[in-house]
């Protein structure tokens, strides 16, 4: 389950960029909020089909909604906020730059959640792995920054 969780998350990360790219293209045609709304609408339809299939083919338990803490319902609205910010920012910079800065925010947020809410201290190999991943990402950032500067210089000289 541990290794499967990592592989599934890796694939989810790959798909996340594809999803963001689709949403960004859509937002250019129908606006940021229209893209965000359609994103949730199409997602609702597909997740509804999955839910119906799970009831039809499986035997799911009926949850006790009174036991669920109210704050967890904020996940959906927060996701909507993230999509709106993503749509605004991705068209103003490159995909890789957006990915790098968002990743820094994600890592900071998830470290705080693991430490203070889930009581999971990071393991040494996780720390070393994060450093390697960050180094790889920074290597791209340096090149990306250099290319952006070259584009600016080219534009200035042509003006």
């Amino acid at each position, binding site marked *: 389950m541990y290794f499967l969780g*990592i592989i*599934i998350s890796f694939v989810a990360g790959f798909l996340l960029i594809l999803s963001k790219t689709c949403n960004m293209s859509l937002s250019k045609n129908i*606006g940021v909020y229209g893209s965000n709304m359609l994103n949730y609408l199409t997602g609702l339809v597909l997740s509804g089909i999955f839910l119906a299939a799970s009831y039809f083919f499986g035997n799911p338990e009926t949850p006790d909604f009174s036991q669920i803490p109210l704050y967890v319902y904020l996940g959906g609205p927060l996701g909507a906020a993230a999509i709106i910010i993503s749509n605004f920012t991705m068209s103003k910079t490159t995909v890789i730059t957006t990915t790098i800065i968002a990743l820094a925010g994600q890592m900071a947020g998830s470290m705080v959640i693991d430490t203070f809410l889930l009581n999971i201290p990071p393991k040494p190999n996780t720390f070393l792995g994060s450093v390697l991943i960050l180094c790889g990402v920074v*290597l791209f950032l340096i090149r990306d920054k250099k290319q952006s500067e070259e584009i600016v210089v080219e534009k200035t000289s042509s003006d």
Partner: protein
Amino acid sequence: MSFKLNTSIFSMGIIISIFLFMNGVLSKYTGLYLSTFLIHLLGLIPAVILFFIFEKNETKNILPTFKANKLIFLGGTIGVIITLANNFAVYNIGVLLMTLSMTAGQFICSSWIDFTGSFGFKKRKPSTRDYLAIALVFSGVILISI
């Protein structure tokens, strides 16, 4: 890039980690499929309100855009697979490991888009440094998997 833009993107990262955690908690109480449905239902409410406040006039562009390019409407359906994957992973590997693995996946996908020029982005030729970066990311994923 402006400080405001950088801060917005950084905040987006923090928001993503918080909502991934909340969605994981919801799935613990309601199950994988019901939680995914609820997340989309609850996300749709503010999305509809914002659309009708700011972009009501864009309604007329939806059908022509759909006829012109159906593929760009797939973002939401891909999102369902991502939500299912996240809800599964949160309680199996924790938020940090999930974030790191997702990060590696995002990095590889972004590199692929930049190197192939897919989806209309500017194409760039990969250098030795880029290959080294990819090797580092994969080594990192292997390390966190141990």
